[in-house]
């Protein structure tokens, strides 16, 4: 028993080490071959070095090249926590852009630890990336990353989370910072607050994630600010843990018990939104409207059925834009803003009208809002800051849908019908 266990375990180690090597160097199509290699290798340790040695050989040129076209660029992206829908969907946008532009993506998992955000930058640099799309959820990380990238001479862009102005200045001072496309998380909360005030609502509760989560913190507090400024009252902000939706549900029912007079419920992301629907269903006497940020599939359902009064989001394209900025730089076109600095492009947050829910689902969730061709068009020697600003100005749900019509993915009649409601 012991002996077999040992052998099995030994073989396992070999297999996984080699699996690591094959999945590292090979693409998906090469996998069967790599598997075959591991099988033979597992049987005999001496053979093990053979395929591995091959891999290094194929990889070396990739590590050496700088932005030279023709070879595949390797671009790193740090996912703050695999398994978190918002960042996973952002990862999808980044990876799609990189692949559409003929690059290779390297995704690392920070496991929700800020230390890992820093050390993974080291790791990506060591792996020989040509550029980094950095998702920093704590402002303090940006100077550290700038320092590391400057030392290694690897360009980076930032995405999604926008640092404060002070931090942005230090970033601009960095040689390797080449821009960023971010969302003002504060705008999301403000937008909802305005919308709710217009509806004449005055007593709100906020259901959100942990207050250590910068995104949710910004959404919740900006909502509170705006709502209070507009004459409303925020009765309670319930900080829960987004990792456990049952926990959020428990929190939500507790809060609704405590404040049965609330007429507005703001859920700071899609998952929490669907949870709030559950919670509200338990209080049939309550007459509260639900607002959600982040347009993910469950929120779309709610919008369609009318359970969700309004939702905003659609800002995940900042992954596309920031990656395009980086690749432009890598191909020799450093885009600068009016002051000659690396740009910070603000991706707007949009409120989705319920009549467009189906089309949104098809072209934002099922497919990417920007086609590969459009993404490729974003990267060329002619692109300027003004062009990107234009893209942002044009970025509305209606315009995008119109573009889809132009691409022949959608008939004009369907769009018109949808717009008409």
């Amino acid at each position, binding site marked *: 028993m012991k002996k077999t266990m*040992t052998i099995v375990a030994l073989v*396992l180690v070999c297999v996984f080490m080699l699996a690591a090597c094959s999945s590292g160097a090979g693409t998906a199509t090469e996998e069967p071959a790599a598997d075959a290699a591991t099988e033979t290798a597992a049987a005999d340790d001496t053979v093990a070095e053979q395929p591995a040695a091959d*891999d290094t050989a194929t990889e070396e040129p990739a590590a050496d090249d700088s932005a030279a076209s023709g070879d595949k660029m390797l671009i790193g992206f740090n996912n703050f926590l695999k398994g978190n829908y918002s960042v996973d969907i952002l990862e999808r946008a980044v990876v799609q852009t990189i692949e559409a532009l003929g690059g290779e993506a390297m995704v690392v998992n920070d496991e929700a630890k800020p230390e890992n955000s820093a050390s993974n930058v080291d790791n990506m640099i060591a792996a020989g990336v040509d550029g980094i799309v950095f998702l920093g959820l704590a402002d303090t990380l940006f100077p550290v990353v700038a320092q590391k990238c400057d030392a290694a001479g690897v360009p980076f862009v930032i995405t999604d989370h926008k640092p404060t102005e002070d931090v942005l200045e230090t970033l601009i001072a960095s040689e390797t910072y080449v821009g960023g496309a971010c969302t003002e998380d504060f705008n999301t909360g403000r937008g909802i607050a305005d919308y709710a005030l217009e509806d004449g609502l005055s007593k709100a509760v906020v259901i959100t994630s942990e207050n250590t989560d910068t995104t949710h913190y910004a959404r919740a507090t900006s909502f509170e600010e705006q709502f209070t400024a507009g004459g409303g009252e925020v009765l309670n902000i319930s900080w829960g843990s987004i990792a456990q939706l049952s926990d959020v549900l428990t929190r939500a029912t507790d809060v609704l018990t405590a404040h049965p007079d609330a007429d507005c419920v703001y859920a700071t992301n899609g998952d929490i939104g669907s949870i709030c629907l559950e919670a509200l269903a338990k209080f049939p006497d309550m007459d509260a409207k639900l607002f959600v940020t982040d347009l993910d599939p469950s929120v779309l359902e709610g919008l369609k059925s009318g359970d969700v009064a309004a939702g905003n989001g659609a800002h995940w394209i900042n992954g596309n834009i920031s990656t395009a900025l980086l690749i432009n730089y890598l191909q020799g076109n450093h885009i600068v803003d009016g002051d000659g600095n690396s740009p910070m492009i603000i991706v707007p947050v949009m409120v989705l009208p319920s009549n467009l829910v189906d089309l949104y689902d098809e072209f934002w969730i099922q497919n990417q809002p920007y086609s590969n061709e459009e993404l490729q068009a974003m990267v060329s020697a002619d692109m300027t800051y003004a062009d990107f600003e234009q893209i942002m100005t044009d970025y509305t749900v209606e315009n995008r849908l119109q573009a889809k019509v132009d691409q022949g993915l959608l008939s004009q009649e369907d769009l018109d019908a949808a717009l008409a409601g």
Partner: protein
Amino acid sequence: MNKSLGKRDFWTSFQHIFPFLGLIVIIIVFSIIAGDKIWTPTNFVGIIALMIPLCIGGSGMIFVAAQGSTDMSQGALVAFAGTLGGIASIYIGFWAFVPVSVGTGILIGIFNGVMVSKCKVSSLMVTLSMLITLRAIVAFVTNGQAFFVDQQILELNKMEIKLPIFICVVALMWYLFEYTKLGFFSKCIGENQTVGKFAGIPVDRYKIAAFALSGAMAGLVGVFTVGSIGGISPQMGSFFELQVMISMFVGGIPVTGGATSRFYKLVVGALMLAFLQNGLTISQVGAEASELIQGLILICVVFFTLFVRNKFIQRQMAKEA
């Protein structure tokens, strides 16, 4: 009299080199996969930087582990001590950073120790509630937000400063653990607490001391963590305690503590974990697969360590015959 163990057979000597062997295998495999990427100076510095907090945290926790107790609060304490140190550095001056941070660690450690030894609450329960409480306090104090501290802290992240401090601290803890009463009695308590008490060890005092050391080291790790992320983040140090435990147990320190706890095993384990995590990342293994492989390799390494140890004991028993 007093001869060494007689002839050393294969398993006996293997038992001593095995922790190193696991490390060597991991290094060789990743050298093959990742090529010279792993041996570039920057990457090597990166590996060392990964190892340093694990080693420092472990050098405190090893006393607790040797006594057979558990310290789950270390990660939360990293955040708590780092945060208080950071706040102190803003209000009092940069010099206060390290003393406040380490001091906080020691105080919380003493509290843990008193709860365990005097109030007789199990260490898991004490440190788990401490983990929950400290995390919440950090979230409260920082209002959930990352913020900057005196930028001199970034100096601490420089290897030329970090490394000497690390070496000094680890050397000191090594000495304390292997060559003084503190370490020896900790191991004895782990072997059999009653025996320790009957042989005149003031058990309570040594327990408190072990938790205090663990806390102090957590405070120091807090300082370095703040340095490495450039400021205070309430999420820093999350699950740090588990990472440290993995390094210790993978290195071959028994979960139950006792005489076979050795400091070098911690260092080897920390290096192994650092090489594994770094190697998997720079070999561009997908994030999902990387965790899978990491888990399996950890289990296999622990299994082999135990396997070799059991073989060794069997041989020794047989030799008695």
